[in-house]
Structures are given as structure tokens and as C-alpha cells.
């Protein structure tokens, strides 16, 4: 007499008698939340962290059940661009991409609903790199803040530090010396070049031009060598701080920069020769991953992505900061908003940045590299032996920190991915009450559905690479 219902059994195979007379039936959700049956080679051990990788309500549900289906179909913005979805739900399949996958943009997880090879819905699931940086910022002083903030968009650390420092300076009402501003412009423009070089390398690799990945790093190493010489670190520099910069430029920096410009320009020429007329590259990038200007404005997509769609907006031109208005440079624009236009825009932007770097080198003002205000920047070490005031200032700055008056401020700069901004709410005191980061990649990831839907799976990778998201920025 076999019992058709499944009764839970213990290790010895004995059935448990239910206290209630009902069969225990697990709901779908409960079954999914249990730890997976992972094939663990060689051992039966399981550490307590082997929880489920199922993210419950954050995942994509079948079309009938998902309340946000229209957003995932990329039709949430009215931009006069329509598509006819077929309603054959039986032929559709939801697949998971990530968070560990070889397209090296970090730990982004995408749920794609496929109809054959065509993508119909996209749902990005993020948070796999959430570091609680905004909470950590409330425990750090303003001088320590740039160490935290620099690790958000880890490909453009100078821009992060600059946005943070400028916001603090806005609250302090502090103006930094001209040399400090010029050094800031120099470092951020070089950072734009190194970030776009990495983008070019990963874009090439994702499209299939693997040589780009190997050789794209060559010129980036030249930039990183200069960063190491100036700031001491290749990445995550903690160099641009409220009050100015941490140290002056090293001796002989003009020659280093001149060599760098020659090396990078040569490299750019080579990459353009490799890719510009390559028929495979053109086929894979033209008309792929289109985003319209209306969608850019609605989703908050800024930077090269917006400019490739034709929106003439660059914070360096419209809200110039750090004296960048004195340098002559163009802002390249695209027309179609596809992957190819983003490629052209970024390659041209690198050359424009090198132009700015040349001008900064030629016209670098003399003076202090940081503000003289002793309530913000510490005195030079030798002065501490000579002056009581210097000693007290040093003591106060390193035990308590910079005191910032009450208020709320926002400031943003043009990073390689768009508008990088910082909101600081201060209630007096040495630590921010709240620091919020306006991350450009967060908006770009949110706009992925409009770029990827109604195109092929292969184009998903190309679009994602051209959006250039940095997950440290997205998840903070």
C-alpha cells in the first residue's frame, strides 16, 4: 500500500508522523529559498553561507505576473519609436546572465526574456557590489571622505574625489588656489583618457576584437605610471581633497606629460586603424543599442551616451568648474545614439582631453597646491616646530577634523560616464550627516532595457559594453 503523497523523511529513511493530518506542501517560494543541491566535489561540507542565490522579488517574473513588464520592455518613454511585440508567451524563456560572467563589467545580473534569439524584456538586478559607502561616509571625517568616495567609480577615481571635494568646499565657502584647480583639471582629464582606454579595451573584447584587450592596457599603463609618480598609487589615489590636492606635481612632470601625450596619441591612431573600417566591427556596432534623446533625458543618462544620441550637454561647457573654461576644446557629438556613435564620441573625447592636458601643461600657474586656510589644510610639518598656532591647527585637524557649517550642497563634475555628483547634508561637525552619490552608471543601467530589447542576444553584450557601467558606482 503505497502512499501517493510525499512525506518528509529523516536520515534513516523513517517517515515522520505529522502532528497535523495535512500533508506538508511547500510553496514554490519556499522551495526556491532553500539551499540549492549543489554538487560539491570531494566533500559534503557546506559552510553556513551557502544560502540561495535566488533573489526573490527582485527577479524577473513571467510576463503576466510581472508588474513592471512595460518598463522591462523598454517602452516606458514616449519617443515616437514603436515596436510590435508578439504575444507568444509559450515560446519565451527567461534566462539569467551573471552576476559572474566574463563580460568584465563587474557583477551585474541581467534577466533576459528571450523569444528565440531576440530579447523581449530585460531586468537588471544589481546590488552585488553594495558596499554601504554612503553609510560609511557618515563615520569618516571630511579629510578621510575622499578615500571612501574614490572607490565608487574605480575607473575614474579623480572625478569622484573632485566632486566630493568641490561639494565640501561649497559648504565651506572655500576657494582653492589657481594652481590647485589646474592640477585638478590635469589629473581629471588624464583620468578620462585612462578610463576611456579601458572602455575601449573591454568594448573590443566583448565584440570579439581580443587584441584590443591586450593592447588597450599598454597606453593605460603609461597614464597609470604618471599617476603613480604624482600621487603614489596607480588607482584609488586619495589625491584631490577638500582644500586642494595632496601634493605638488613631481619634478620633470612636463616631460612626463609630453611623452604621455605622444604615446597615447600613437596608441589611439593604432586602435582607430584597427577598428574604424573593420567590417565586422561596423556590422556589430552600427544600429545596435540605440537610445533616443528623450529616453536619455527621462532616465538621467548623461555623458558620452547622451552626447552620442545628439544631446549637446557637457558640464565642462555648461557649468564650468576649476577654471576649465580657459582651455579650448570641443565636445564631440553623435547622431544616431548607437554603439558605433558612442565609440566615435569616446575616441574623439580622448583626443580632446589630450588637448586640454597640453594646454594645462603650457599654462600651469605657479603658487600653492592647496589652500592656505589652516582650518582646512594642515600646516607644513616644519612649521609645527616653529609656531604654536601651527601645532594647534595640526592637532585640531587630525584629532577632530575639518568643521563644516550646517547646510546642504550639491555639486557635480563631468566624469567619463556622465554627471558625477555629490549631495552632502551637514549639521555642523566634522563628519557629514548624509552623503549621497549621484552615480552616472546607475542611470545607464536603468536605461539598459531600452537599448537591448528587440535586438539579438549578441547585441546585448555590445550594448552593455558601450554603456560602460562601473558596478562600484551603481551599487555604491
Amino acid at each position, binding site marked *: 500500500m503505497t502512499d501517493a503523497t510525499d512525506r518528509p523523511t529523516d536520515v534513516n529513511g523513517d517517515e515522520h508522523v505529522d502532528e497535523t493530518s495535512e500533508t506538508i506542501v511547500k510553496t514554490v517560494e519556499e522551495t526556491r529559498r532553500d539551499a540549492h543541491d*549543489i554538487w560539491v566535489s570531494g*566533500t559534503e561540507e557546506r559552510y553556513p*553561507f551557502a544560502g540561495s542565490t535566488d533573489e526573490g522579488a527582485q527577479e524577473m517574473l513571467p510576463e503576466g505576473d510581472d508588474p513592471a513588464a512595460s518598463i522591462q520592455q523598454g517602452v516606458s518613454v514616449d519617443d515616437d519609436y514603436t515596436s510590435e511585440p508578439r504575444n507568444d508567451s509559450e515560446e519565451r524563456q527567461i534566462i539569467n546572465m551573471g552576476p559572474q560572467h566574463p563580460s*568584465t563589467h*563587474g557583477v551585474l545580473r541581467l534577466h533576459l526574456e528571450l523569444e528565440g534569439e531576440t530579447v523581449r524584456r530585460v531586468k537588471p538586478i544589481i546590488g*552585488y557590489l553594495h*558596499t554601504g559607502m554612503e553609510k560609511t561616509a557618515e563615520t569618516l571625517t571630511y579629510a578621510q571622505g575622499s578615500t571612501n568616495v574614490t572607490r565608487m567609480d*574605480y575607473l575614474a577615481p579623480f572625478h569622484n574625489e573632485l566632486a566630493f571635494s568641490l561639494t565640501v568646499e561649497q559648504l565651506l565657502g572655500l576657494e582653492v588656489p589657481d594652481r590647485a584647480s589646474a592640477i585638478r583639471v590635469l589629473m581629471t582629464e588624464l583620468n578620462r583618457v585612462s578610463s576611456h582606454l579601458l572602455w575601449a579595451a573591454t568594448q573590443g573584447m566583448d565584440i570579439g576584437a581580443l587584441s584590443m584587450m591586450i593592447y588597450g*592596457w599598454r597606453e593605460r599603463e603609461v597614464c597609470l605610471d604618471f599617476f603613480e609618480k604624482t600621487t603614489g598609487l596607480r588607482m584609488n589615489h586619495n589625491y584631490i581633497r577638500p582644500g586642494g590636492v595632496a601634493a605638488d606635481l613631481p619634478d620633470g612632470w612636463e616631460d612626463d606629460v609630453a611623452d604621455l601625450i605622444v604615446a597615447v596619441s600613437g596608441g589611439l591612431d593604432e586602435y582607430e586603424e584597427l577598428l574604424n573600417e573593420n567590417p565586422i566591427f561596423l556590422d556589430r556596432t552600427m544600429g545596435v543599442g540605440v537610445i533616443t534623446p528623450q529616453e536619455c533625458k527621462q532616465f538621467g543618462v548623461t555623458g558620452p551616451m547622451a552626447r552620442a544620441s545628439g544631446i549637446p550637454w557637457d558640464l565642462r561647457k555648461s557649468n564650468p568648474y576649476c577654471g576649465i573654461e580657459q582651455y579650448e576644446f570641443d565636445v564631440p557629438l553623435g547622431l544616431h545614439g548607437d554603439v558605433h556613435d558612442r565609440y566615435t564620441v569616446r575616441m574623439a573625447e580622448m583626443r580632446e582631453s589630450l588637448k586640454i592636458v597640453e594646454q594645462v601643461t603650457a599654462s600651469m600657474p605657479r603658487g600653492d597646491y592647496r589652500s592656505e586656510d589652516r582650518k582646512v589644510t594642515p600646516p607644513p610639518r616644519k612649521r609645527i616646530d616653529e609656531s604654536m598656532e601651527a601645532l594647534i591647527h595640526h592637532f585640531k585637524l587630525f584629532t577632530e577634523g575639518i568643521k563644516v557649517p550646517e547646510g546642504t550642497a550639491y555639486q557635480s563634475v563631468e566624469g567619463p560616464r556622465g554627471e558625477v555628483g555629490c549631495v552632502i547634508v551637514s549639521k555642523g561637525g566634522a563628519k557629514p550627516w548624509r552623503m549621497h552619490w549621484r552615480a552616472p552608471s546607475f542611470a545607464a543601467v536603468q536605461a539598459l532595457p531600452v537599448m537591448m530589447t528587440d535586438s539579438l542576444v549578441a547585441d546585448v553584450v555590445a550594448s552593455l559594453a558601450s554603456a560602460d557601467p562601473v558596478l562600484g558606482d551603481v551599487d555604491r
Partner: protein
Amino acid sequence: MAGVSSEPGFLLTTLEKGVNWARTQSMWPASFGLACCAIEMMGTGAAHNDLARFGMEVFRASPRQADLMIVAGRVSQKMAPVLRQVYDQMAEPKWVLSMGACASTGGMFNNYALVQGVDQVVPVDMYVPGCPPGPQSLMHGILSLQEMVMDGTIRNSTGVV
């Protein structure tokens, strides 16, 4: 060299050495780049600091084909089950190298969001300090791990023969 009688014979010792040599000379990493350390890891694999000359020819996307998992970057609470799942999918012998301060101990982010050290989730064979460790530091860590495998100091990450 200790007494010969208690040790395996000459042939087996040489075979073991041969196996260890083979394991170190083509130890393929699984790509598990998470944050800033991943950029330095990619830089280590690129042309300037070429990791392929040490046998790490390709970064395998599939963990089933990989030997070494370099956890490069900060592991958040949401990522920990994924990390464990990828580790479990790797075939023996496998090693784990924890790259950077965040992977080793949680780094500068001692807060609610991060796992304070990836050794809470997977057993680690080599820790490489730095924030981020430069390519030379990472290579030093990888080569030290290869030396330890070569010597037989580490069999595999769980210590099981």
C-alpha cells in the same frame, strides 16, 4: 631527507613532483573580478605585466574549467552565496587566492554590507594585501602559491588528498 623506508619510493616521489609541476605551470584562473582589484587583475593579465608567461594563459569564464579562483574585490552579503556556488562548481584540485584588503578582511569597509573577509565563505590559500595590490604584488602572490603547490605544502584548498 628522512629515512627512505617510510617514504614512497623514488618513482612515486618523482611522479608526485611531476604532477605538482604540471599543476603549477598551467593554473587557469576563474574570472571572479568584483571591484577595483579586478582592474588590477586585468592589468596583470594584459600585455605590460604578462601573466601568461607563468602559465595562466586564459581566464576561464566557466568555473568547471578553472583551477584558481582569484577573489578580486569586495564581497557583499548578496554576492556571498554566488561566490560559494562558483567555488563549489570548481573541480579539484582548486585553490583560492584572496586579492586585496576587502577580500582578505573586509578592508576599509567594516560595515553591514560586506562579508568581512572572504575566508568566511570559502577556504583561502593565499592572501595578497593591498588596496588594490599592484600587478607585481599579485604576481608575487600567485608565484608564491605556485611555489607552495610545487613543494607539496598545499595539496588543494580543502586539505584533502
